[in-house]
C-alpha cells in the first residue's frame, strides 16, 4: 500500500502546515499609515491605459503624500473583481479606487468593502455608497452623438443608409449610456432617422470582433452605402469603418468614437471623424481631492451618482482635425506629471 501511505502522508504534512504556519499576522501595511489601493480595470483598449499597466498618476500622488500604495487588476472579469475585493479588505486599505468594467458584481464588492469600512471612489460606473468620479457617460454619449449628427446632417442631409451601433454589452450600463447616448445625441440633430436603419451588434469594443460582425451586417444590407457608426469606444467604431472599406470603395463612412484611444497620436483611421475624450488616465489626479479629505478624517458627503457626482469630469468631443495636436495617453500622463496643478482636460481639450 505504498500509494496509499504516500497520499496520506501528504495529507498529514499539509494539515501540519495548515495548523502550525498560520499566524494572526495580517498582510496589511504598518498601522497608522494611510494605504491607497487601486483596482485597475482590465484589458487595455476597452478601458484605456488604466486597463493593464497600472496607474502612474495615483502611484505618484500616493508617493508624494507618503502613503502606502497597492494595486490589483480586475482584468475585466467579474470573478477576479470579487476576489480582488477580498484581497483589498485583507490588505486593510484605507481607501480604494475602483475601476470595474463588470458592474454586475459591484453590489457584492460594495458589501465586502462596506463591511470593512473602506471608502471607495468609483470611476465612471456608479454604485450606491461609492464616491462617483468620472464623466457622465450619458452626457459623453450625447456629446459624441451630436457631433456625429452634425456631420451626418452636413454630408447626407440627415439621411444615412445605415447607423451601426457597436456595443460592448460586457461593459454593462456604461455601454448602454454611451452607445445609447450617441444615438440620442444624433437624433437631436437628425430626429428623423428611422429605428429600422439602426443596427445594433456586439463589437466587444474590439476591432477584431466588431469588424467581422459589421461586415456581415453590411452584406445583409447591400444597398446601404452611407454608413454612420457609433460605439462604446474608438476601436468599436474603427472596426465597422474598416469592414465597409473592405467591402468596397463605394462606401461612405462617418464614424465617431468614444474614449479617444485611437484618435490621438499618429496612424489615425481616416474614417474616424472624431471621438469623445475623457482623459481616463488622468482621473486619479481628481481623485486626490476626495482622498485627501478622507485621509484627513473628514470625508466629503456621499455623492454617488453621475447626476450627483463627487467629481465630474467633463467629456471633450474632439474632431479628427483637432485631435492632431493631442498626443497619446502615455505622453499625456508624462506631461501631467510636469504640470501637477492642471488637469488633462485643461491641458489638452481644445477650446
Amino acid at each position: 500500500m505504498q500509494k496509499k501511505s504516500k497520499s496520506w502522508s501528504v495529507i498529514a504534512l499539509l494539515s501540519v502546515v495548515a495548523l502550525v504556519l498560520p499566524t494572526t499576522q495580517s498582510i496589511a501595511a504598518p498601522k497608522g499609515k494611510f494605504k491607497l489601493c487601486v483596482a485597475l480595470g482590465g484589458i487595455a483598449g476597452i478601458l484605456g491605459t488604466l486597463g493593464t499597466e497600472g496607474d502612474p498618476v495615483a502611484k505618484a500622488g500616493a508617493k508624494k503624500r507618503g502613503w502606502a500604495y497597492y494595486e490589483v487588476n480586475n482584468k475585466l472579469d467579474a470573478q477576479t473583481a470579487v476576489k480582488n475585493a477580498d484581497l483589498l479588505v485583507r490588505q486593510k486599505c484605507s481607501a480604494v479606487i475602483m475601476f470595474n468594467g463588470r458592474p454586475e458584481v459591484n453590489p457584492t464588492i460594495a458589501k465586502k468593502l462596506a463591511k470593512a469600512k473602506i471608502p471607495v471612489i468609483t470611476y465612471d460606473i456608479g454604485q450606491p455608497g461609492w464616491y462617483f468620479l468620472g464623466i457622465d457617460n450619458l452626457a459623453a454619449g450625447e456629446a459624441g452623438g451630436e457631433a456625429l449628427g452634425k456631420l451626418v446632417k452636413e454630408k447626407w442631409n440627415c439621411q444615412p443608409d445605415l447607423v451601426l451601433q457597436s456595443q460592448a454589452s460586457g461593459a454593462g450600463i456604461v455601454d448602454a449610456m454611451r452607445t445609447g447616448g450617441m444615438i440620442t445625441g444624433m437624433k437631436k440633430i437628425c430626429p428623423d432617422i428611422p429605428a429600422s436603419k439602426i443596427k445594433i451588434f456586439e463589437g466587444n469594443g474590439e476591432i477584431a470582433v466588431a469588424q467581422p460582425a459589421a461586415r456581415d451586417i453590411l452584406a445583409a444590407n447591400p444597398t446601404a452605402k452611407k454608413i454612420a457608426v457609433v460605439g462604446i469606444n474608438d476601436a468599436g467604431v474603427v472596426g465597422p469603418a474598416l469592414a465597409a472599406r473592405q467591402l468596397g470603395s463605394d462606401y461612405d463612412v462617418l464614424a465617431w468614437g468614444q474614449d479617444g484611444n485611437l484618435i490621438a497620436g499618429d496612424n489615425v483611421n481616416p474614417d474616424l471623424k472624431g471621438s469623445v475624450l475623457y482623459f481616463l488616465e488622468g482621473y486619479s489626479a481628481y481623485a486626490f481631492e476626495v482622498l485627501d479629505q478622507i485621509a484627513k478624517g473628514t470625508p466629503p458627503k456621499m455623492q454617488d451618482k453621475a447626476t450627483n457626482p463627487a467629481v465630474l469630469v467633463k467629456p471633450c468631443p474632439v474632431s479628427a482635425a483637432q485631435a492632431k495636436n493631442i498626443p497619446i495617453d502615455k505622453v499625456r500622463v508624462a506631461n501631467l506629471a510636469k504640470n501637477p496643478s492642471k488637469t488633462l482636460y485643461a491641458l489638452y481639450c481644445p477650446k
Partner: protein
Amino acid sequence: MTATLAPQQLSKKRTKNAGGPSVTILAGIVIISLVSLQGVGFAAFSTDNLFLILNYLALPLLIGMFASFSLLAGVVDLSIGSMVGLSAAVFAVLATYELNLWLCAFLAVLTCLFFGCLNGIAIVGFNANPIAVTLGMLVALRGLARVVNKYDNSATLSSTDGTVIFIDGLNTFTEASFSFLPWLFVIALAFTLVLQLIISKTRYGRHIKAVGGDLTAAVRAGLPASRIKFTSLLISSGGAGIAGVLFVGKMGSSSSTLGTGMEFTVYAALMIGGYSILRGGVGNPIGGFLGLFVIAYFSNYIDNMGFDTRFADVFLGTLLLVIVYLDIRRGGEEFE
C-alpha cells in the same frame, strides 16, 4: 506481431511514482512558501492570507473534483467552464422571476445535466471524439449563457451582460467560514477525501479507472463501459451546475465572463496534479487537490506582491511547465 512490446520500447523510463506527482508538488509548495516568505514576509502564512487562498480554491476544487470523474474515465469534458457560466445564468435569470430559489437551483443543475446528457449521447452513444464534442459544447453553451443572460428580469442594470441577483441567504452560505477555513472549502476538501476513497477503495472507483485506463480490456472484463463513461460525463456536468449556482451566491450575479477559460486553468492544475486529459485511468483526487492548491498559492503570491498582473500569466505558464517537467524527471509520464 512485435507490436505489443513496441509502446514499451518507446518510453524507456517507467513511472516510478504511481501515487502521482504529489512529491513534486509538495516541493513546489515549499519553494513557493520560501519565495513568499522572502517577498511577503510571515504575513504570507497568516490566517488572513490562507483564507484568501482557500476561499478562491473552493469552487474550482469542487468543479475539478467532479470533472475528474470524466478525466479518469478517459472522456475529457472541456465544456465544464461554459456549464458553470450557463448554470449561473439560468439560476440568476430564473431568480429574477422570483421563483423558489431551490427550484431555480434545481433547474439550473438540470439544464447542465441535460447538456451533459447530450455530451454523453454523442460521445458514448455515437462514439464521437470527446475533445471534439465537448469543445463544441464549450462554444455552444458559452453562447447560450450570453443569450440567457439577456432574458433577465432585473431592472437595476438593464444592459449588463450578466444578471444581477443578490441573494442574501446564498451569499451568507458561500461566504461563511470557520476561523480561516471557508465552509465551501471545507466541503470541497471533504468531497475530495471522499472521492479519494471512492477512487482508490471502492468497486466503482476501480471500474472507472479500468474503463479509462484501457477501454477494450475493461469491456472484455465485463465492465459496463458505456454506462460508466456516460455517468462520468453526467457527474462532471452536474458538478459544474452546482458550482455555477454557488458562484451566483458568491458574486451576487451571473456574468457572461463567468467560467471563461476555467476549463483550461482547472485542467492545467489537474494535469500538474497527475491527471491526464488525453488518457484516462491516471491521477488521484489528492494529487488534483495539490495541483489546484499550488496554482492558487502561486497566484496569491503574485496578488500579494502587487505585481504587474501581466507578469502573472507569464509566471503561471512557466510554473506549469516547470512542475510537469520536474515530475517527468521523477518518472512521470513522458511524451513519446
